[in-house]
């Protein structure tokens, strides 16, 4: 570890926290239907979209209608992507004449991008045509991100409103999020990336004659990369244009591009904490949630950075400690321009959020370094989190924390003037239980069947970690991987369902909670009310997140990374 590494982390933190308020205010304006400075340009487009799609913008929906609209829309987009993948050979912008994607992989990929997961059981540059990338996959980087944001905002509305039957209009929320937030940001962002060296073209792959041996040809994959990279990061999607994802020099060519990529993962999720405070009229609560998230983020980074800077003593004759001109540490599966600090920071951030892009190979991280991404996803990606998904995930934990605090003081729990009653706690627990249920069930099945074990890249406890990580990543809609894991029909199908359940069966209880909170009356705070805008509350929230996560997943972690670490310390390899 080095002072420079910590300084990079500190500067990242300062910039991120400085943007929370302005981003949060802007998001509030957009989602409350208020005027923004982009109105003169975008308002006409907004009206055209409503007209073309038959949206009655002034008509609000109750939570069931909101959920149906979200499901219907997701189904339609998933179907479109499946169709494009299957038909890509006959469609334009396929300069490499790539064949149709197989049925099971096409299903897996369509599910993966629809659910904001972007798990990729394929090498993109050898599988997907430019049209598939642009219209079949990158579109989901916008859609699924917007869907996450609108569900979070619906839940915030539920907390804010009293005696209301409705929680907003799904189509209006989607349209405004896409038009006013994601699109303009991505236009600027993509150009910044091109400036740094990310390609943006529709040309054939380049044939180069290498310097040392001109007869030796290197074919260089190209494509509309920047336009996909921007929403991939900003929308916490994470699906790479290339197999190596943000480790590929074409997706992430410089330390500066790396910095804007990790910044863009957190910026919306962090801003939403301010939106929460502002919309519910309790800014202190927004900041308390933000603080709880930040503490978990910093702790994860510290462990991951330490572990990657201190590899096991397995070789001799090599310079593995840091010098002024070499980062040292565990450099297997990492890039020189990122070094140790930026790789650890990226890995922590991408899994705190549900992004899943990687700038180094998590599979080759040290056991404890690789356990941090895994554990981050297991905690539900509530550390700033996937755009929207992190916010509604954290609000579920808030309800559980308030409930526990209520039990401790012996009063009916209240949250910002709403009584938290049995239905609310049931929905919160449903949300909290679906996640480990699908992960542990799938992982248990796949370590028992030969089809599950045959495609691991590494033997021993790390092989178990690969299988566990895949279902954790899928259900958490993260999409990062211990990427040595190969694929077969069984994984394609099981992971597809793992992702769909992890997205939609968890969004529905969140929306049900929103609907139920919205129709409640407000009760004035009493001396027995547990305040949710204090440091004490932030500490309680961190405790609840860690305890729920640890109780659920510690046994699984101890069979994987923890066991691997202990054995490696004694020099045992597999």
């Amino acid at each position: 570890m080095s002072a420079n590494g910590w300084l990079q982390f500190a500067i990242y933190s300062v910039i991120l926290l400085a943007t929370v308020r302005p981003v949060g205010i802007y998001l509030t304006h957009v989602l409350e239907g208020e005027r923004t400075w982009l109105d003169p340009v975008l308002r006409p487009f907004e009206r055209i979209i409503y007209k073309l799609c038959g949206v009655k913008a002034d008509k609000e929906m109750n939570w069931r209608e909101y959920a149906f609209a979200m499901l219907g829309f997701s189904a339609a987009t998933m179907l479109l992507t499946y169709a494009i993948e299957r038909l890509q050979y006959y469609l334009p912008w396929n300069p490499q004449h790539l064949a149709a994607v197989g049925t099971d992989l096409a299903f897996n990929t369509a599910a993966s991008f629809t659910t904001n997961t972007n798990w990729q059981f394929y090498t993109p540059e050898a599988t997907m045509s430019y049209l598939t990338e642009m219209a079949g996959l990158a579109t989901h980087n916008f859609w699924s991100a917007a869907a996450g944001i609108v569900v979070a905002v619906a839940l915030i509305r539920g907390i804010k409103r009293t005696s209301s039957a409705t929680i907003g209009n799904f189509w209006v929320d989607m349209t405004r999020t896409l038009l006013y937030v994601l699109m303009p940001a991505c236009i600027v962002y993509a150009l910044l990336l091109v400036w740094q060296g990310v390609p943006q073209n529709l040309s054939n792959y380049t044939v180069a004659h290498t310097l040392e041996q001109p007869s030796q040809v290197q074919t260089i994959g190209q494509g509309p990369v920047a336009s996909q990279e921007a929403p991939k990061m900003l929308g916490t999607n994470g699906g790479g244009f290339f197999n190596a994802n943000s480790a590929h020099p074409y997706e992430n060519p410089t330390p500066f591009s790396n910095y804007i990529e990790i910044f863009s993962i957190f910026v919306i999720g962090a801003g939403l904490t301010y939106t929460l405070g502002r919309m519910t009229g309790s800014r202190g609560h927004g900041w308390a949630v933000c603080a709880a998230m930040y503490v978990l983020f910093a702790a994860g980074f510290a462990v991951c950075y330490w572990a990657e800077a201190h590899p096991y003593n397995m070789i001799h004759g090599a310079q593995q400690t840091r010098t002024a001109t070499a980062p040292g540490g565990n450099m297997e599966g990492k890039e020189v321009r990122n070094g140790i600090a930026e790789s650890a920071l990226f890995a922590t951030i991408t899994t705190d959020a549900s992004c899943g892009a990687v700038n180094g190979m998590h599979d080759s991280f040290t056991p404890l370094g690789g356990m941090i991404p895994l554990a981050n996803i297991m905690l539900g990606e509530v550390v700033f989190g996937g755009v929207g998904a992190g916010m509604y995930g954290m609000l579920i934990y808030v309800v559980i924390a308030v409930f526990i605090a209520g039990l401790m003081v012996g009063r009916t729990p209240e949250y910002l003037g709403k009584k938290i009653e049995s239905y609310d706690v049931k929905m919160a627990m449903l949300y909290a239980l679906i996640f480990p249920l699908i992960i542990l069930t799938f992982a248990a099945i796949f370590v028992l069947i030969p089809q599950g074990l045959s495609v691991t890249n590494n033997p021993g406890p790390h092989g178990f970690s690969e299988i566990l990580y895949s279902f954790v990543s899928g259900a958490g809609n993260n999409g990062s991987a211990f990427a040595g894991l190969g694929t077969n029909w069984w994984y394609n199908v099981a992971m597809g369902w793992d992702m769909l359940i992890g997205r939609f069966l968890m969004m529905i209880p969140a929306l049900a909670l929103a609907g139920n909170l919205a129709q409640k009356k407000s009760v004035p705070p009493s001396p027995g009310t547990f305040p949710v805008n204090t440091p004490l509350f932030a500490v309680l929230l961190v405790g609840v997140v860690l305890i729920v996560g640890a109780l659920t997943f510690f046994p699984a972690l101890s069979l994987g990374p923890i066991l691997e670490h202990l054995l490696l310390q004694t020099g045992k390899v597999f």
Partner: protein
Amino acid sequence: MHSNSTIDEELGTREGHHVSHVQESLVKHSIWGTSIRFTLVTSVLLGLVYPLLMTGLAKVLFPHQANGSLITLKDGTVIGSELIAQSFTTDRYFHPRPSNAGSGYDATASGGTNLAQSNAKLPPRMQADIDKLAAENPGRPVPIDMVTYSASGLDPDITPDNAYFQAPRIAKARGLTEGAVRSLIDAHIQGRTLGLLGEPRVNVLDLNLALDDAAK
């Protein structure tokens, strides 16, 4: 607890249900229609208009980068991209980091080894490479990036330590002094961005082109 407020709430809920049943039948009817129309309209906007607009803008504003930062000789031959590692094996050139992209430096199949630290194949592989390199430059520890595979398999950079380590071999093969090679390396070190971000590094293809230029 079980006072008027609860009864009110129940009534409110029941009324809410009644209203929402009427609404729902109407809305469900239109959900599929709206879903399909919204999907089509936004996929044209986000899947075609946006990327094509970006392609146009990128090609006008940053044509070199938009086309992949290619390095072209005077006769028009493309020798590679400054961002993508290519294979160098002879003593006359600096070597990039080991690659697991395809069968090595395959820029249509990027990727790392994904070997775990606990994989029994990893330490012997690294040790064999270290021992081979140690013969080239006895008594000096081998920089770790020389014997670890990059994440993309296309890492265009090596650490300055790695370049210094290779300097004696290149000096010998090209009949240069080691000092001349080292000063060429120093001239090609890219420091941290703003003195802060990332790590110091040397672009291998850049450096090798400079070697050839120096020979002319």
